[in-house]
């Protein structure tokens, strides 16, 4: 290519041989790049057009998911639009017809070498001890485009290093090249503008504001995109050198968004998760819980082997003994009280294969109808049969209707995508919520309601001509989930039905939260004919009807929004079998505990909330002798006299593709060929029935309770990740400032909160985002469990708040 440098190209020469039959592409722009004709797209940046033509232009501040700022000046090229070659910022300027672009002319090369020398002038060059060394864009581009030597002999800039800017992220300002990637990400993508440039000129530096740490749920992304080692994350600091890392692409199962990740390990230990840029789901971003939650996989508290309860507590056993014991207990219950005396809760934390094998075991082998993957924490599985939207459809819809929990807390990367849709002015958000959420500020209309009255709120809103006009103008996607654990889910589904009747063209994106809950529900972890959901199963267990309760990665004592019922169920049911990665509070009630493999330790597929099937990959050897859930189900089935026919995870994947209509054709081979996974959305249309529950008028308890989840809670995987464990904000109660005045306690003071079920002394905090006459509490936080107040059968929950 070098011999064509600066060769004057014939102006107006067509880039491709003209064919009379094809009409000219209106989006084609003919340019010349380094003397070679190239057809670029209209509006394309020079830096991207050059990349398409195989000419890499070095860059630091450019990121394809963010607004270009042209600050680092690394990507300067020469572009000639007819007035002679001009110094051009290739990440800011778009291609123009007949533009002649030179990325390797003497001037362009001189600029690139000069710029790299300037970048390195004050850079500490501590590459041997820098975590980024080996995967560092500054290092790589200094090698590929730099001058090769430095003439800078002056004293370099000095700053205190490193400084923690949050609980998770450290900043080394000496290494920083001020590219504006992290600051732009925080402001533009995450909406948490907590880091910014301070000082000016040669002493410009990135920093936080005084006493305000970079406490963003997305802070880990800044570490990933930092082009030098200036930002490092606590869990990975000094853990490995990049060339010692092995990696495999996988899918995050922390929540149901299904972000694509790269799982990296060294010496058979998980060390780092990085986001993978795919168009369909996460666009390269991850939340910090998904990024750092792998620490729980490495936890020393993991179950190493199956265990059987003896008179002296749990005794570790081999798998044969444990599986024999479990199978005997199940068989005993079936023989004595019938198949329906066995109940199974869980399956949402594993893979599709795990869920399918367990569903087969439950329905075909044991024959019980009492199977469910959720624990009242989201809407009923029939919501999955409504016309389903993809995340892309939601992020491109004219109207996004939010009837969901706070997405920033529960499905963080979906929050990023929808926030982006509003920021880019593609979409308007119409929100129905019992309290303000992370997206309230971005919403076109945010309509607050008291729990149980969302149906009225929707009806009222639909009567508003502005809302009706907005809903009629283009695509509508309803993000539907359960924003309040302290109310019956039917309020939300009834309101959803009201909306869907008025807006028949609307599609639904289910805001279900557990990692593979959609996969589990679609693959059969749902009640059979006459079967119970989780609340019914636990109620049967509590009143002695159920003989055997199997918990597949489920911990009702921590997660079920009625602690009293969960406690009674687990202490009454004669037999509990738990399949889990940790000895959770519920597993401690078990007679047999089967040690399960965790994420990163097993392969398979998962289904995200859109129905997108993507692969997860085994990167490290399992902890102890733990096994994947599908294998446990298969072994149990064989001991119960049925051969499910699975000898490898691929067998299960192929069986799903062959037997479950929605997954038809989704084989391992098809997934390998697919770029962004494959969609599995059921064809069948179970109807979602209107329940017609009416919220009771106020009782003697004057505050109606709203219970929601926060990203960092007391869940076992957060608790067992050392970097995340301290981030939970703890139990407290939030009320509107005017209500707090009425209670007569200052914000931060102590109050007694009581309901018919429980009474607790809590810190009260004033928050103007709380609806008047409601009280908000986080679910499953250290320092108190909101589930103590809840009753799984109640329509709504009211509490009394008194000054102490």
């Amino acid at each position: 290519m070098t011999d064509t440098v600066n060769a004057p190209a014939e102006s107006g020469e067509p880039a491709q041989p003209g064919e009379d039959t094809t009409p000219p592409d209106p989006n084609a722009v003919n340019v010349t790049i380094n003397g070679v004709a190239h057809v670029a797209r209209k509006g394309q940046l020079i830096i991207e057009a050059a990349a398409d033509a195989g000419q890499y232009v070095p860059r630091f501040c450019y990121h394809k998911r963010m607004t270009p700022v042209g600050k680092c000046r690394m990507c300067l090229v020469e572009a000639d639009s007819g007035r002679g070659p001009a110094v051009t910022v290739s990440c800011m300027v778009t291609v123009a017809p007949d533009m002649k672009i030179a990325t390797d002319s003497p001037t362009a090369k001189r600029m690139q070498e000069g710029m790299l020398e300037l970048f390195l002038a004050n850079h500490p060059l501590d590459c041997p001890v820098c975590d980024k060394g080996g995967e560092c864009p500054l290092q790589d581009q200094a090698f590929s485009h730099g001058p090769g030597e430095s003439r800078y002999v002056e004293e370099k800039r000095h700053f205190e290093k490193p400084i923690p800017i949050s609980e998770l992220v450290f900043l080394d300002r000496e290494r920083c090249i001020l590219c504006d990637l992290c600051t732009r990400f925080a402001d533009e993508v995450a909406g948490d503008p907590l880091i910014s440039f301070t000082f000016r000129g040669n002493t410009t530096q990135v920093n936080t504001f005084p006493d305000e740490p970079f406490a963003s749920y997305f802070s880990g992304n800044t570490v990933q995109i930092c082009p030098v080692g200036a930002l490092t994350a606590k869990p990975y600091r000094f853990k490995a050198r990049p060339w010692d890392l092995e990696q495999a692409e996988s899918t995050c199962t922390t929540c149901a968004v299904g972000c694509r990740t790269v799982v990296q390990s060294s010496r058979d230990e998980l060390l780092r998760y990085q986001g993978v840029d795919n168009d369909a789901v996460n666009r390269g971003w991850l939340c910090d819980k998904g990024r750092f939650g792998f620490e729980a996989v490495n936890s020393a508290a993991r179950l190493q082997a199956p265990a059987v309860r003896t008179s002296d507590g749990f005794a570790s056993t081999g798998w044969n003994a444990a599986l024999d014991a479990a199978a005997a207990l199940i068989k005993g219950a079936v023989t004595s009280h019938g198949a329906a005396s066995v109940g199974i809760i869980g399956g949402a934390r594993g893979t599709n294969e795990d869920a399918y094998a367990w569903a087969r075991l439950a329905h075909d082998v044991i024959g019980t109808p009492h199977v469910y993957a959720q624990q009242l924490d989201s809407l009923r599985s029939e919501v999955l049969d409504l016309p389903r939207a993809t995340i892309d459809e939601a992020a491109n819809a004219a109207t996004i209707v939010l009837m969901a929990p706070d997405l920033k807390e529960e499905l963080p990367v979906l929050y990023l995508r929808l926030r982006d849709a509003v920021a880019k002015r593609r979409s308007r958000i119409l929100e129905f919520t019992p309290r303000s959420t992370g997206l309230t500020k971005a919403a076109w209309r945010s309509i607050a309601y008291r729990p149980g009255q969302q149906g009225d709120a929707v009806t009222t809103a639909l009567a508003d001509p502005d809302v009706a006009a907005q809903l009629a103008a283009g695509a509508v996607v309803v993000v539907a989930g359960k924003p309040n654990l302290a109310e019956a889910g039917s309020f939300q589904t009834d309101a959803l039905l009201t909306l869907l009747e008025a807006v028949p063209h609307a599609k639904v994106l289910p805001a279900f939260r557990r990692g593979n809950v959609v996969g589990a529900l679609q693959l059969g972890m749902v009640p059979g004919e006459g079967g119970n959901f989780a609340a019914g199963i636990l109620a049967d267990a509590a009143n002695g009807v159920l003989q055997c309760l199997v918990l597949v990665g489920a911990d009702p004592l921590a997660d079920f929004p009625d602690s009293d019922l969960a406690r009674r169920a687990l202490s009454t049911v004669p037999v509990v079998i738990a399949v889990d990665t940790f000895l959770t509070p519920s597993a401690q009630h078990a007679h047999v505990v089967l040690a399960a493999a965790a994420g990163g330790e097993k392969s398979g597929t998962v289904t995200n909330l859109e129905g997108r099937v993507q692969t997860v990959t085994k990167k490290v050897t399992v902890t102890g002798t733990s096994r994947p859930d599908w294998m446990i189900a298969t072994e149990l089935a064989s001991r119960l006299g049925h051969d499910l026919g699975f000898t490898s995870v691929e067998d299960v994947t192929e069986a799903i593709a062959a037997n479950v209509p929605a997954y038809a054709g989704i084989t391992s081979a098809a997934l390998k060929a697919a770029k962004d996974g494959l969609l599995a959305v059921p064809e069948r249309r179970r109807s979602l029935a209107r329940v017609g529950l009416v919220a009771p008028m106020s009782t003697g308890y004057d505050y109606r309770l709203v219970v929601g989840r926060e990203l960092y809670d007391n869940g076992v995987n957060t608790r067992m990740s050392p970097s995340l464990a301290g981030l939970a904000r703890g139990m407290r109660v939030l009320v509107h400032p005017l209500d707090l005045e009425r209670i007569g306690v200052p914000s931060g003071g102590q109050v007694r909160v009581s309901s018919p079920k429980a009474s607790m002394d809590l810190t009260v905090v004033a928050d103007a985002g709380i609806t008047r006459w409601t009280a908000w509490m986080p679910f499953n936080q250290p320092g108190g469990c909101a589930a103590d107040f809840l009753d799984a059968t109640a329509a709504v929950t009211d509490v009394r708040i008194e000054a102490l």
Partner: protein
Amino acid sequence: MDRFLATGGYEGLKVALAKAPSAVHDDVRGATVLGRGGAGFPAGVKWGLMPAGKFPRYLVVNGDESEPGTYKDRLLMERDPHQLIEGCLIACYAAGLSQCFLYIRGEMALAHERVGEALNDAYAAGYVGKNIQGTNFSVDIVLHWGAGAYVVGEETALIESLEGKRGEPRLKPPFFPAAIGLYGQPTVVNNVETLSNLPWLLTNGIEAYTAIGTATSPGTRMVAVSGHVQRPGVYEIINGTTTFRDLLYGQEFCQGIRHGNELKAFVPGGGSAPWFTPEQLDLPFEGKLVGAAGSMLGSGAVMVMDSTTDIPAAALSLTRFYAHESCGQCTPCREGGTWLERILARICDGHGTSSDLDLLIEVGTSICPGDFPHAASSSLELEAVPFPYKMTTICFVGPSAYAPIHSAVTLFREEFEAKLVKRTSIPVTAAPVMAVHA
């Protein structure tokens, strides 16, 4: 106020208000009122760049005069604030601008005070505010006091600062704030002196205005002279006609170099302009001619250096200013400016080596690739390299740090060489051995 009115104050505004706005705009365009801030862009053309039909649009007055050696706007604001206010009103009327923001440099306390007083008087007299002079033309003028940063004199940085953000130049494109300016609205940014030209132009008409100076550079302009002349100060010269020799040696102007010394060099257009030597004295104040000769008229500031001047020290003084005033957002200016300053300081301190002079030019080339403008020199057998230069930076601060160095090293290399360390190689000092503790 009274004295201003007694000497024909606000007459230009009355003339303007009697005409249609477009007619006033045509007058300004026809008279080719060149911008007096530094770039010399015609004001009438600048106003016409605003997209039609997009309102509100704003006038921002650039009173952040901070180019080294320049103090002519300060004089206009301190001594004739009403003329500036009148100019603002005429501009707003002609270009359909609904609000005016007068940005005065942080260090200019007296100017701020006097413009403020004048504004109050003008409001009281009905020249500013609602329904000016009984017409349906209304404009508010907001006085804003800057926080003191050189780079805010750059029009987009000034807009950022006015919006309450860090004073950093905006990225180009868009190249002009006319399309997207203050608060995202079409905005005209004009220099104090440019606007101060308008009252006289309106009162006396196009013919009288263009009769002064030359066709391409009509009118007069204010030039601040500093340095080694007998009588430094701000002088009003005639565009295109007055030469630098007239200005420096003329009896009505500076009356020659101090103590009868020889002139060594002078900066013709503010600290960021390449230097001239006595060879260029006969050039007139005409942008194109000065540009062809290798420098620029810039902000209307001439700095004079006589034969006693230590040229490297003078260059260091200017470079240090620009390095310090870099906003820090783009790499070449942030890193390169300070590096240049340090190399130069090393040379001035007597620690420079023979390679340092080439290094200065090399670092400068990283900021400004290609040939950098400089004046011709018959003694050095140098041809002039004309304006403009190429630059890798976002704004002109980075190249400004290099400009004095380039001129000084090109035209006065022997003065630098005289300061270099006289040795062929740098002795290598043994690195301290670190103690190893058990």
